[in-house]
């Protein structure tokens, strides 16, 4: 029997070795994949996200927890694919063309996975072609990240390119603001990694 409370605690504390051990043991014991996710990993990641929004946790703890989460997910991902688990939806995340900063983008990707979404990580320096490929692979939301004011304008090009299409564009990154998102006509803005999860939740609910 898997100790889900211990798994949640290990994710929250960012203890990736414990997370790996518990997840591996659960897999070895033929634990239900959905249970590992829905009773262990996902509630823990949602919890750290909530703590973050309430200012009870800060970026360092979030990054540390996210990395522990990823360690567990790496073990689970092949099994998730094989299990045919239904996710909440498909989101592509990428750092826009011209920019190669990816720690914030990676955090958003893990938070979204931790919230139960299927995430396509497009990497850094993503041009419109890369985002198009993601749409072709079934992404319904494109999350664009930029850390430099000099690369932010590319987000506008992405928004304009997909204007009138069904796919939604959300943006984020240190210099990005809600005002900028409104100005370029993006469908949403995530102030931080948890904000990104919230806006994705909202857009899928509306869809």
């Amino acid at each position, binding site marked *: 029997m898997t100790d889900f409370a211990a798994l949640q605690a290990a994710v929250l504390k960012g203890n990736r070795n414990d997370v790996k051990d518990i997840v591996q043991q659960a897999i070895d014991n033929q634990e239900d994949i959905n249970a590992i996710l829905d009773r262990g990993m996902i509630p823990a990641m949602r919890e750290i996200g909530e703590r973050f929004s309430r200012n009870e946790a*800060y970026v*360092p703890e979030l990054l540390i927890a996210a*990395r522990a989460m990823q360690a567990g997910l790496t073990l689970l991902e092949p099994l998730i694919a094989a299990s045919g688990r239904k996710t909440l939806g498909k989101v592509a995340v990428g750092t826009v063309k011209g920019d*190669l900063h*990816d*720690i914030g983008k990676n955090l958003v990707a893990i938070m979204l996975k931790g919230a139960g979404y299927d995430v396509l990580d497009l990497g850094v320096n993503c041009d419109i072609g890369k985002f198009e490929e993601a749409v072709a692979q079934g992404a319904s939301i494109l999350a664009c990240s930029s850390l430099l*004011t*000099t690369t932010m304008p590319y987000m506008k090009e992405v928004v304009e390119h997909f204007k009138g299409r069904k796919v939604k564009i959300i943006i984020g990154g240190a210099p990005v603001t809600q005002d900028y998102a409104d100005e370029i006509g993006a469908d949403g803005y995530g102030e931080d990694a948890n904000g990104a999860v919230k806006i994705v939740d909202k857009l899928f609910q509306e869809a």
Partner: protein
Amino acid sequence: MPDKTIHRLTILRSAEPLPEVLARHGFPLDLRCGGKGTCGRCLIKLLNGRWECDGQELPVPIQAKACQVRLLSDSGEIAIPEISLQQRNGKMSSDWAFGSLPECAEPVIAIDLGTTTIAAVKIHQGRILKRASCYNAQNRFGDNIIARISHAEGSAESLVELQRAAVASINELLAELEAENVSRIAIAGNTVMSTILHGIDPSPLGKIPFIPPLRVFPVRKASELGLKAEAPLYTVPAISAYIGGDLTAGLAELRLAPGEMLVDIGTNCEIIFHAPQGLVCAAAAAGPAFEGAGIHCGMRAVDGAIEHYFGKDKFSVIGDTDPKGICGSGMLDFLAVERQAGHLNEFGRLQPQRETVALAPEVFLHERDIAQLLKAKAAVASGILALEEHCQSQAGKIFLAGGFAQYLNLNNAIAIGMLPAGREYCIAGNTSLAGAAHLACQPDFTATLEKYIESPQEIHLNSLPAFEDHFIDNLMLS
């Protein structure tokens, strides 16, 4: 007590933005966000007159961000608290710790053109005659190089505006150093600063593939750039977009031997390592936390800043005044001392649980400030460690360049994991100025500098898989 001086002024309506009017009249505001209205450092009180902000008229009297308001009536009175002005009397370093200057019969001037501060020295016959320093007037267009690039991209006029701001600041120093009779001026700066000074559009420096428009700058008559001197101006060549002439200068001055590393800790942390395979270099974005930006009570190393912290109510303040805030070296001490005392856990959370900690009557740190500091120190550590791992070799000796390094407590920097333990450290001082001084005294040093810019291989830290892992590991306090 913080400086409670208030300046009351009457403003007349003009098309010029308020901060520029004030700067022209000797009240340069703290516009570290570039006047975007995001940092809240330029707060003033609007006493009377009709004012608007964001299209809405404000009820006076009211406190407002000077960069966001516009006067509607013919005149209006304002009050500017001293704290909203650009801080002066800062600690600016024009010292370096090695070598002697080459013999040179004529008087020359060397300049370190920093993003935030500019330091200059006048040298004659191998001796420093006079030192001068000031803030870079470009600060009002943003406190970091990316903000400056963005501003320059706006239009040809904004590039000219930036160029003139730097020239105006340098001219202050030239006047102070009496530059009329000097034979040469040499300048070292990061690539963005040098590019803008030469009037070149820096926009390629802001995007992949980060190719500098120019790495070797021509020798110009200083007056051609608007400088008040007739001497020829030499510029230290740049290695890459992020590893500029300031680092070339340091590299050439220190002549890094195999196993040695040069680390310049600032908003960007630049690293050059003489690895077994040759010279490699990288830049890590540490952010401005150690410069005091983005920290509630953070300030630069100027009068009134807590410079060293030894425990509650035990600290030293720059200028021997009452503490107004805390600067990088003080914050770093705080992390080490309070972690050691058990008042911070490994995630940088206060123990027992609370949000803020008071260091002095008007100075506190918030847990969010501590999180910012952890990110900054993790960037420095992970830059060094990821680069070493990439080269499969460890530096035995690390030279620390830059002003911040001169005032930090090395043991504390190691204790909090900003710098790796078990290395020999050498505080090298302002190596950028040292290299510029060498070039000013001996113009054929150009050949050496131009040779040096060809050797380092640049590594983009973000492209190293180990970088993020080291970054996250080092977010914690050991």
